[in-house]
C-alpha cells in the first residue's frame, strides 16, 4: 500500500551489471518505499532475475555501474550475509536442496544468525520449535517439514512455501520474491500469496519478480514495472499487469521505439 509519509527503503540508480562479461542490467532505476508492493514483469531474458540476484549479492554478477541505497546506506558494499542481516531477503526461484541437514536445524541457524546480527535474542531448540510451528500455520505447512532435509524431495509448491516461511522468520524490510509463482498449482498459489499478504505491513516492502500476471490477482501490487533489455521501460499501476496479460510484451517495446523516434 502507498503511504504518504513513508520512507524510501530502496533506491536503485543507473545500475549496470554483467555476468561472464555480458552486460545484463543496463541502467536500472527503481525506488521502493516502505509499505509498497512492486511487481517487476518482463519477457524472458529481460534481466528480472539478474536484478533480484544482484540485490542479494550473488557472486556471479559483477556490478559495472550505478548505485543501490538501502535505507540510505550503500547496499553493494555489503556481503550477501550482511545484506540478509540488514533486512534484505531473496525468495529463490529454485531453492537449493541440502540432504543431510534437517529443515528445523537450518531454519533455526538462519534465524539465530540474523537475530544475533540485529542484536536480538536467539532461541534454543525448544523455544524455536514453538515459534516456527506458529509461523508454519500461516502457510498451512505440516510440521513434518521440520524433520525432513532442507527442500529435499519437496514439491515445487512445498519449496516455495518453505521460502515464504523463511521470510516469515527473518522478518525482512525488503523481500524480493523471484518467480515465486512458478511451478505452483492454484491452491499452493493461494496459500503462498496469503502468507505474503499476511507478512506485508507498513514498515516493509515487497518486490515481486514475475513473468505472469496470475500471481498479481492474489498479491495486488501498487506499482507494475516492465523490464526490457536490462532496464525498466514502463511503470504503471496494477491495471498495467492486466494489459500485459491481454496484449503481451511486444507493444511495450514498440511503444518505446516509437517514443524514441518521436523525440529525435
Amino acid at each position, binding site marked *: 500500500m502507498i503511504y504518504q509519509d513513508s520512507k524510501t527503503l530502496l533506491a536503485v540508480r543507473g545500475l549496470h551489471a554483467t555476468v561472464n562479461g555480458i552486460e545484463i542490467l543496463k541502467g536500472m532505476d527503481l525506488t521502493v518505499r516502505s509499505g509498497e508492493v512492486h511487481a517487476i514483469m518482463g519477457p524472458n531474458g529481460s534481466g528480472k532475475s539478474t536484478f533480484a540476484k544482484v540485490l*542479494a*549479492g*550473488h*557472486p*556471479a554478477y559483477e556490478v559495472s555501474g550505478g548505485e543501490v541505497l538501502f535505507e540510505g546506506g550503500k547496499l553493494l558494499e555489503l*556481503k*550477501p*550475509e550482511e*545484506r*540478509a*542481516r540488514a533486512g534484505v*531477503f*531473496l525468495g*529463490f526461484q529454485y*531453492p*537449493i536442496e*541440502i*540432504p*543431510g*541437514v534437517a529443515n528445523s*536445524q*537450518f531454519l533455526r*541457524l*538462519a534465524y*539465530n*544468525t*540474523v537475530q544475533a*546480527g540485529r542484536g536480538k535474542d536467539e532461541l534454543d531448540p525448544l523455544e524455536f520449535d514453538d515459534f516456527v510451528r506458529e509461523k508454519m500455520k500461516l502457510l498451512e505447512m505440516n510440521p513434518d517439514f521440520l524433520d525432513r*532435509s532442507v527442500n529435499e524431495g519437496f514439491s515445487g509448491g512445498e519449496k516455495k512455501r518453505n521460502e515464504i516461511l*523463511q521470510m516469515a522468520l*527473518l522478518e525482512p524490510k525488503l523481500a524480493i520474491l523471484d518467480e515465486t509463482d512458478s511451478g505452483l498449482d492454484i491452491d499452493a498459489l493461494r496459500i503462498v500469496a496469503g502468507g505474503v499478504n499476511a507478512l506485508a505491513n507498513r514498515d516493509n516492502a515487497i518486490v515481486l519478480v514475475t513473468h505472469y500476471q496470475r500471481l498479481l490477482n492474489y498479491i495486488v501490487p501498487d506499482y507494475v514495472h516492465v523490464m526490457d533489455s536490462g532496464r525498466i521501460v514502463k511503470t504503471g499501476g496494477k491495471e498495467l499487469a492486466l494489459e500485459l496479460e491481454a496484449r503481451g510484451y511486444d507493444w511495450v517495446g514498440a511503444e518505446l521505439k516509437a517514443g524514441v523516434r518521436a523525440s529525435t
Partner: protein
Amino acid sequence: MNTASTAGYLDRLLQGRPPASSLPWLNQLRANAVDRVGALTVPTTRDEDWRFTDISPLTKLSFQPAQRAPQLAPATVDRWAVPEAAARLVFIDGIYAPRHSFNHAGLTAENLASNTIGHGAGVQAHLGRHAGFEHNAFTALNTAFLHDGALIVVPRDMTLAAPVHLLFIATRKHGASYPRCLVIAESGSAVTVVEDFVALDNEAYLTNAVTEMALAGNAQVRHVRVQRDSTEAFHFADCAVSLARASRYHSISVALGARISRHNLRALLAAEGAECTIDGLALIGGRQLADTHTLIDHAMPQGVSRQLHKCIVDGAARAVFNGNIMVRAGAQRTDSSQSSRNLLLSGKARVDTKPQLEIFADDVKCAHGATVGQLDVDEVFYLKSRGLSDTAARNLLTYAFGAEVIERIPVASLRSRLEEAVLARTQTAATGTAPQL
C-alpha cells in the same frame, strides 16, 4: 622400493605368530597362508591395483604383534560404548578381552580361537573360503596369524534388532594386530554388526583386518564399519561377503582415521534375487590417504546393487575409490547403480575415482556416475542469503555432504557420535565460527 627388501619386510612381519590350534585344518590354512606370504611382496604403485596408493611409508617402520594385551579400565573401553549393543566383543591389540565383552542369549558372538571346535563344521566351511589370499599379501598375513577373532553365528530365523559391537582397540606404538571376523547369518536371520576400529593414542601402528560374511537364503546383514584409527596408523582391511538367494546386505563404511588406509570390499551375489547396498564415506585431511576398492560381483540373475561412495578431502590428503561392478554372463535382469561423489576442500587435496563396469549379460540395468568438485557456488550463496557467514555456510554444506552417508547408519548412538565427529572436522577445516546444530 625394491622387491628383495620388501619380501624381507613381509617375513619380518610374520614373526611372533600365535600358537598352533588343535584343529589340523586350521593349522593347514595358516601354513598355506605363511607360504603365500613368502611368495608375495609388498605392493607398490607399479601394481595396477595399488596405482594411486603408495604404501612405502609402511616399510620404513617395523611392527610387532602383542604377546599379551594390556589391561584397560572399563571406563576406558566404555568411551567407545554403543549403548544399544546386544552383544560386544572387545579386542585389545588384536587379543580378545573377555572381561570387556558380553554375549546375547541365542546368538553366538564369541572368540574365534576358543569356539572354533564347537562350531567346527560351520566355521571350516567359511573361514578363509571367502577372503582368498592368493593375490593379497595382507590377507595372507592376517590368515597366517589366525587365532583370536570375532565369530558371529545368527541362528536360522533369528532377528536381532540391536547391534553386535566389535570393538578393536589399538594401544601400542609400533604394534601390529590382525583382527579377524567371521559372520554366518543362517537362513531368514537378521543382524546388525558394527566393526569399530579405535586407538588409545595417536601413535603409528598397523591394523590388518579380514572380515568374512556368509548370508544364507533370505538372511539380512547390516554391516557398519567405522575406521577411526590414529592419524599415524596404517590400516589394511579385506572384507568378503557372499550372498545366497534373496539375501540382503547393507554396508556402511566410514573412514576418518589412519595415515594410510586401504579397504577392500567384495560382495558376491552368488544366487538369484540377492540385494546389496554399499555406502561409504572417507573424511580425511592433512597428509592422510584413504583408498577404497569395492567389487560387486553379480554372478546370478535378478540381483540388485546400490552404491554411494563419498569422499571429503582437505589439506594435502588423497582419496582413492575404485568401484568395480561385474555382471557375469548368467546374471540377467541385474539392476545396479553406483555413484561416486567427491568434495575437495583445498587446492592440494586430491581424489582418484574410477568406476568400473564390466557387463557380460545383455538384459541389465546399470547406471553409474562420478563427480569431483568444490562446494557449489549457488548452494553457498543460498545459505549466505539467509545470513550465514561464508565459513558457516561452507561448514554446513560440507557437514551435509558427509551426513548423507552417516544418516544411513542404523545405530542411533553411533550415528550421532559420527555426526559430531564430522561436524568437528568441518569446523576445524575452516577458521571462524561454525554452525551451531
